[in-house]
């Protein structure tokens, strides 16, 4: 029996790693949203001085990592492992960032669930005694995602009301063995769940069952309920997916609606920013967590939260071949202090 495992799919970290530093870089549209005061850098131009959006996205990821390191005077040679992933084919944003950083690198693909996927592994690596300092990072870019998954930007098409707006943003989180918190304490790893949604313009609905599945298993495994958390935030279910997830969780005996929010709803003003159902993308939960929520921990407004980044594991090819969209959601618990 694994000594740190509790329940079915959750681990309780024995030596919870501390978050040492975070950094966020977001695009101009995110910089006009309600969380604009919490981001480190807001780009004026989403090309970030580069020749293509792919290059710009990779630079955002790389610079977010560098900025997070600079904040605590950390140099790359002190970092044991770098976990990162993004939405682009062959995760080029991450690996090209890793090329510049020179830190041993694990490339991940979890679609928009990458923030908590990378943080899960980065935390386990430290708790397991394999590393002292690790970095988890992820990015997404509206324009690079749009051309890979949908239409050219200048094409005059209409988006359905269920569609979501890919966040242009990157977030980096540095974890360390020694630190003053907040700490990563529990990890519940997601299963791939597919309830047969085929509409790529309704990813929130495709991911909602996965989010509900992970949250329910987490609550059962840990014995927590909504009252134990200040906040439970999913990654990018947006308006429709979030409502569905709350309903499914309620049907299974947990009412979390008073503590529940979604990063895709927090990052944009849905009524004025023309994003339809809300934000999406790896950068969505990354920017909201590494920017806004981390600062709330530092100012003492939060004690224990659960982040559940959600990913839709589709590709343009799978959609064209009529495949349904599998979803995944990874949960991590973050606490201001540990002990007792």
């Amino acid at each position, binding site marked *: 029996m694994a000594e740190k495992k509790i329940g079915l799919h959750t681990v309780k970290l024995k030596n919870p790693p501390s978050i040492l530093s975070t950094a966020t870089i977001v695009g101009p549209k995110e910089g006009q949203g309600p969380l604009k005061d919490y981001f480190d850098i807001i780009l004026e131009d989403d090309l970030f001085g580069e*020749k*293509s959006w792919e290059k710009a996205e990779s630079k955002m990821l790389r610079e977010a990592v560098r900025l997070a390191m600079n904040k605590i005077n950390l140099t790359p040679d002190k970092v044991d492992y770098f976990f990162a992933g993004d939405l682009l084919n062959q995760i080029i944003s991450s690996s090209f960032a890793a090329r510049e950083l020179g830190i041993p690198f694990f490339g991940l693909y979890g679609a928009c669930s990458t923030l908590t996927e990378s943080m899960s592994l980065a935390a386990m690596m430290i708790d397991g005694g394999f590393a002292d300092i690790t970095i988890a990072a992820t990015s997404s870019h509206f324009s690079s995602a749009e*051309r890979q998954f949908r*239409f*050219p*930007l*200048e*094409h*005059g*098409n*209409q*988006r*359905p*009301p*269920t569609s979501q707006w890919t966040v242009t943003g990157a977030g980096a989180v540095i974890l360390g063995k020694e630190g003053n918190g907040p700490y990563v304490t529990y990890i519940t790893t997601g299963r791939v769940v597919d*309830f*047969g*949604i085929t509409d790529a313009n*309704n990813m929130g*609905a495709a991911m909602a*069952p996965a989010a509900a599945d992970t949250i329910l298993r987490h609550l059962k495994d840990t014995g927590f309920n909504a009252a134990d958390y200040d906040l439970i935030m999913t990654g990018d279910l947006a308006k*429709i997916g979030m*409502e*569905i997830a709350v*309903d499914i969780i309620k049907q299974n005996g947990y009412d979390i609606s008073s503590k529940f929010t979604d990063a895709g709803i927090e990052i944009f003003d849905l009524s004025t920013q023309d994003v339809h159902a809300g934000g999406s993308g790896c950068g969505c939960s990354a920017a909201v967590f590494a920017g806004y929520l981390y600062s709330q921990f530092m100012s003492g407004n939060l004690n224990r939260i659960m982040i559940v980044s959600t990913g839709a594991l589709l590709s343009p090819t799978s959609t064209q071949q009529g495949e349904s969209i599998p979803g995944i959601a990874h949960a991590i618990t973050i606490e201001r202090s540990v002990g007792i």
Partner: protein
Amino acid sequence: MEKRKENEIKNTYQQIVQKKVPQSSILKDAVFAFVVGGLICDVGQFFMNLFLSLGVSKDDVGYYVATVMVFLGAFLTGIGVYDNIGKYAGAGSIVPITGFANSIVSPAMEYKREGYIFGVGSKMFVIAGPILVYGISSSILVGIIYYIIKILAR
């Protein structure tokens, strides 16, 4: 048995989702499409009248108007306006020939960064391609039917 139960869950879930999904306002979309599509046709008519008044023959005026409208569609795409029109007008700005221009110019702009051969060259017709394939195919089909009817009518 397992499979049937799984399908049942999926069906129930899709019904739940259907209820939650906000519907596009068909009336509003149709009015926007009608008005904008109509305005684009008015512009076309304006140029047709202009060319006719300048002495272009009735047989040729179509080529003149199409050239101008394709230019306008491409120009508005290039300066980043056409996609904003399309956001509101939908089919109203996709169906006219200006929309056809937009569907060719927008990928040409988008894929320039992958170079002129594998970018612009191979991606230019990524949206318009199907329209051409099925447009040309159906015109051949209609042509054959027309030919047969002509023989029979003799």
